[in-house]
């Protein structure tokens, strides 16, 4: 007899697919299994049944989710669902993790956490072998360009270390489910049956300016029919702007994105669930996982930025978003509205639901290099033969896309991340110190090599000193820096001014040298400058909201950046140690290692280079350092000269402790720990900027530059013919306004064709701008970087 009715209800299948799967025993039969079912069809419920089966046998289960927010939501739910069992959450958000790995019977983890556990498997050997089941939610992330290779490597390591573990992969969007199941030597089950069917509608616009009106109309229609609407957009700014516009039109709207504070995000979600908010405008944060079913989903933007350019959204992403539509018990169908331009003939294919195949990230050399060094450093492989065999089992190998293992090993030997030794006459591979840094800090080999290169140069050329900003730029230029905060065109001038005030060696290099060194150019290089400057401001201000305000970003981003920079700088310290010059430096000279270390400290605590010297005294942390600063004790020299009663006036400082601190400060000052030890005396960065008139703010310099290569063939009754681009176009001048028949104009931009015509007509302001584009001033020109010159 089941004494817990809630539990009994929880165990009841709700759909025919769920029942079929339960009856077939797929969840418990012992095979790995790939389940593909639409969003909202109960995959998580099935995962719970599989997990319960494992917990009842007193074994462990892991639930892998890429979203910290979802981990938190499931943790709360499963504490009750599996009452009596210990549920631990391991995502990095739970810094003061109360539950240890060993005590947890159900572990909710992010892929990054599990990756770290498999890399240092010896330290987790007391619990890893007890894991009987791993549920991999959002299995399609195997194809993610950034995280896919790591997830694949993690799963391969796990099943080799624990051959008894069973994998249950879940996804709504797999184009090659059978292939994935074959790779896992398992079975698969797929269903496209949705509890609530979807109806698709395409709403078209001629010009991008029409979109907000179309959105309002569609959202109003759904709300008036008693439903709620979820709108997906491509940027946080757009989410905020549209939500405000909808509110102004009388709808109860809100925005949702990763930049929101955790508490605010939960409040918004709660308000939407309760019906207080009718329309939620969100970024891709809500694409996965979070349970917020609605009547209608509107995809406002059908493009996404892939790091280089805007590209159409993949079918998988569209369906992840569309899948939110339709509320069980309330809607007979879920409505999906795609807002698309008239000229887009491809948009209808989304409704067909032909998902893209998941392609392994180990086809990329960088992804493979990282996994190779991980295998060697963790002691799981020692020879090339072993590595080749291990990666022959990968998804990439199955797809005949695996990058060359032997070539990658060769490159890593050359880069000194691996070395060859001999054992009993046989060659063996070993990770070098640099290799261990990469594995321990979960950095890509690229990042480690970049840091090594920069620090070697700095060390060998004794007087080549890198400033704090330089070191932050180096850290920001690595692929492992998250987030990289881009700069808008409108903010270039502010960036310009900010950089111009900072001591820097790197900004004194030519653009070409800098591009080569940091392996980035154009908008990415600008983003690196911006991100580094934000981090530098943080060390001076130490308050996330203030920094975010100053730089036009989000407090959440500043916090994430702080975490990321701290990790990168700590790795840099280890690399600096590894490349240390054997000769002892002058005692007064700050070695690159010491400088990076103090910078890591500054970033960690949000303290500047002077105040941070206070924290060199044992017992003085960041909070106390700030208090001392406010009491006019700004650095270690001030502390050494302070009278103890100056300190005892501050709360929580007893006479004895004050005396100890002053004494310690005196000793340190005697031993060269000057307050000015880290003060920078480098010249400021030579950054210039093309002056862009505020009257011409709507003229994008990139389009203006492109306009220069076009030919205006002449006019005929106010219509100009433009050639020289991919297609000829016509620009019409009517009642003082230009219009063009190109897609760029239809999106609401001032296109290059119109600019070409205006130049042709001799518009003076534009000609001055063109002249400004051609100026090559001394120093780094941020505008040139923007337009990609």
């Amino acid at each position: 007899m089941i004494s817990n009715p809630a539990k009994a209800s929880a165990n009841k299948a709700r759909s025919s697919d769920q029942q079929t799967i339960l009856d077939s025993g797929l969840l418990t039969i012992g095979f790995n299994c790939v389940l593909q079912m639409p969003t909202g069809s109960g995959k998580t419920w099935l995962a719970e049944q599989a997990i319960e089966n494992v917990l009842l046998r007193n074994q462990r289960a892991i639930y892998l989710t890429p979203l910290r927010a979802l981990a938190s939501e499931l943790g709360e739910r499963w504490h009750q669902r599996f009452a009596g069992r210990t549920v631990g959450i391991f995502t990095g958000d739970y810094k003061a993790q109360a539950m240890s790995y060993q005590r947890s019977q159900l572990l909710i983890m992010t892929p990054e956490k599990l990756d770290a556990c498999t890399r240092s498997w010896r330290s987790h050997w007391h619990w890893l072998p007890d894991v009987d089941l791993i549920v991999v939610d959002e299995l399609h992330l195997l194809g993610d360009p950034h995280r896919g290779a790591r997830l694949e490597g993690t799963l391969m390591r796990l099943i080799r270390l624990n051959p008894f573990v069973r994998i249950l992969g879940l996804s709504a969007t797999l184009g090659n489910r059978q292939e994935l199941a074959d790779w896992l030597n398992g079975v698969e089950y797929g269903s496209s049956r949705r509890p609530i069917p979807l109806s698709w509608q395409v709403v078209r616009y001629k010009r991008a300016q029409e979109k907000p009106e179309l959105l309002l109309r569609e959202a109003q229609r759904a709300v008036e029919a008693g439903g709620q609407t979820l709108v997906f957009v491509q940027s946080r700014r757009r989410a905020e702007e549209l939500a405000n516009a909808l509110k102004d039109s009388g709808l109860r709207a809100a925005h949702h994105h990763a930049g929101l504070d955790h508490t605010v995000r939960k409040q918004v979600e709660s308000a939407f669930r309760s019906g207080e908010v009718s329309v939620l405008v969100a970024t891709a944060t809500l694409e996965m996982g979070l349970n917020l079913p609605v009547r209608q989903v509107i995809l406002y933007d059908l493009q996404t930025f892939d790091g280089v350019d805007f590209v159409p959204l993949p079918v998988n992403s569209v369906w992840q978003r569309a899948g939110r539509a339709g509320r069980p018990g309330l809607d007979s169908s879920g409505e999906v509205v795609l807002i698309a331009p008239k000229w887009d003939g491809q948009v209808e294919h989304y409704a067909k639901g032909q998902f893209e195949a998941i392609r392994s990230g180990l086809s990329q050399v960088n992804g493979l290099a990282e996994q190779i060094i991980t295998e060697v450093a963790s002691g799981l492989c020692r020879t090339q033969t072993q590595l080749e065999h291990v990666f022959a089992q990968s998804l990439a190998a199955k797809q005949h896309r695996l990058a060359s293992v032997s070539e990658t090993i060769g490159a890593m030997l050359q880069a000194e991340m691996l070395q060859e030794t001999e054992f009993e006459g046989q060659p063996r591979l070993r990770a070098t110190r640099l290799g261990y840094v990469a594995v321990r800090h979960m950095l890509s080999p690229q990042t480690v090599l970049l840091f090594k290169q920069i620090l070697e140069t700095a060390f060998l050329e004794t007087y080549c000193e890198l400033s704090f900003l330089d070191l932050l730029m180096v850290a920001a230029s690595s692929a492992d820096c998250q987030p990289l905060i881009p700069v808008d065109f409108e903010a270039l001038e502010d960036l310009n001014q900010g950089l111009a005030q900072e001591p820097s060696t790197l900004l004194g290099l030519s653009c070409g040298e800098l591009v080569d060194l940091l392996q980035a150019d154009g908008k990415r290089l600008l983003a690196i400058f911006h991100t580094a400057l934000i981090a530098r401001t943080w060390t001076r201000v130490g308050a996330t909201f203030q920094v975010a305000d100053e730089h036009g970003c989000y407090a959440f981003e500043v916090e994430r950046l702080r975490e990321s920079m701290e990790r990168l700088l700590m790795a840099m310290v280890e690399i600096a140690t590894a490349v240390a010059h054997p000769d002892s430096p002058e005692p007064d000279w700050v070695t690159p290692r010491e400088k990076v270390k103090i910078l890591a400290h500054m970033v960690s605590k949000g303290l500047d280079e002077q105040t941070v010297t206070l924290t060199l005294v044992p017992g003085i942390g960041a909070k106390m350092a700030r208090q001392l600063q406010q009491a006019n004790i700004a650095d270690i020299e001030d502390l050494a000269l302070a009278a103890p009663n100056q300190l005892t006036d501050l709360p929580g400082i007893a006479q004895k402790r004050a005396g100890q601190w002053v004494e310690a400060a005196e000793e340190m000052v005697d031993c060269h720990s000057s307050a000015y030890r880290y003060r920078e005396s480098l010249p400021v960065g030579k950054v210039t900027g093309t002056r862009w008139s505020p009257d011409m703010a709507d003229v994008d310099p990139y389009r203006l530059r492109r306009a220069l290569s076009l030919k205006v063939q002449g006019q005929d009754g106010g219509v100009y013919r433009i050639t020289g681009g991919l297609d000829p176009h016509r620009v019409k001048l009517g009642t003082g306004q230009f219009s063009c028949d190109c897609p760029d104009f239809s999106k609401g931009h001032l296109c290059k064709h119109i600019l070409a015509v205006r130049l042709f007509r001799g518009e003076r302001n534009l000609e001055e701008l063109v002249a400004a584009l051609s100026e090559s001033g001394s120093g780094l020109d941020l505008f040139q970087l923007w337009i990609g010159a």
Partner: protein
Amino acid sequence: MAQRSLKTRRGELSFPAYVPVTTFGKKYPLDDLIRPYLHRLAPAAMVSYYYAQEMSPETSLRLPTLVDSGGFAALFEGSRLRQQKGLGVLEINRDDRTEQLHPKTVLEFQEEIADVAFTLDFPIPPELDTKEAKRRQRLTIANAHWALDNRRRRDLPLYACVQAWDVESARSCAKQYANGGFEGIAIGGLVPRARNLELVLGIVRAVREEIGDLPLHVLGLGHPNSLTQLFEAGVDSVDSSSYVRYAASGKLWGQSHQRIEEPTPTDRLHLALCNLATATGKTLPLSSSQMLFSTLRMSGTS
């Protein structure tokens, strides 16, 4: 026929049983990899007295633990067997120091950590002269009776060890233990005689005739080829490390003419688990059996 078994403080040990040998410490790292999985595939595990010293609460086994006496060290170079007050005491030279193995030391340690204990015995290699062989047997018997008389933990099953050089000496030794109060009898010294299966089975049958229904264990013999015959001859349990020794060499039982080229640590783990499953008759999980066998890239040995 009723299922035969032995009750231990950590549960029943059902017979017939293949008991894998494991070690602790740094000498055999493959054992560290295998150990967390033993409880899935085996009913118990055997640890030598020497390696059991390295056990800790974190590394302790999750299944009934059999601890032998360490008397195997009598075969080490430099070791000496002395008689003290009628008991056999072994002096072992190890790492430039001399250790002494006394029945008291062994029993006290076993009472702390073991679920099944074996009395301190002294192997009799085939080439040993009869006088010394008889001396070793006499001291082995004396130690066994001493342990029985001085055991304090009543829930610790104690196996008396038989050491002999032929069938009759084995019978004679077993007679000394029959009806003595031991929970089981173990036959040692058969490893160097393993190739002579007729002799081995003869000794087993002779001992079985003398001890009646008492559980009978054979120390150190556990190749699958001989298991069936040993069980049919009256053996209830065996212990062996050959499942892991084969794996360490990259070999799979049943395919001994082939081996894995450059096995990784996890390859060896997989091989050992396959070997163990073969010996214990346990079924590997579907997902792992496919994976385990697919990792094997056997090639012919030269």
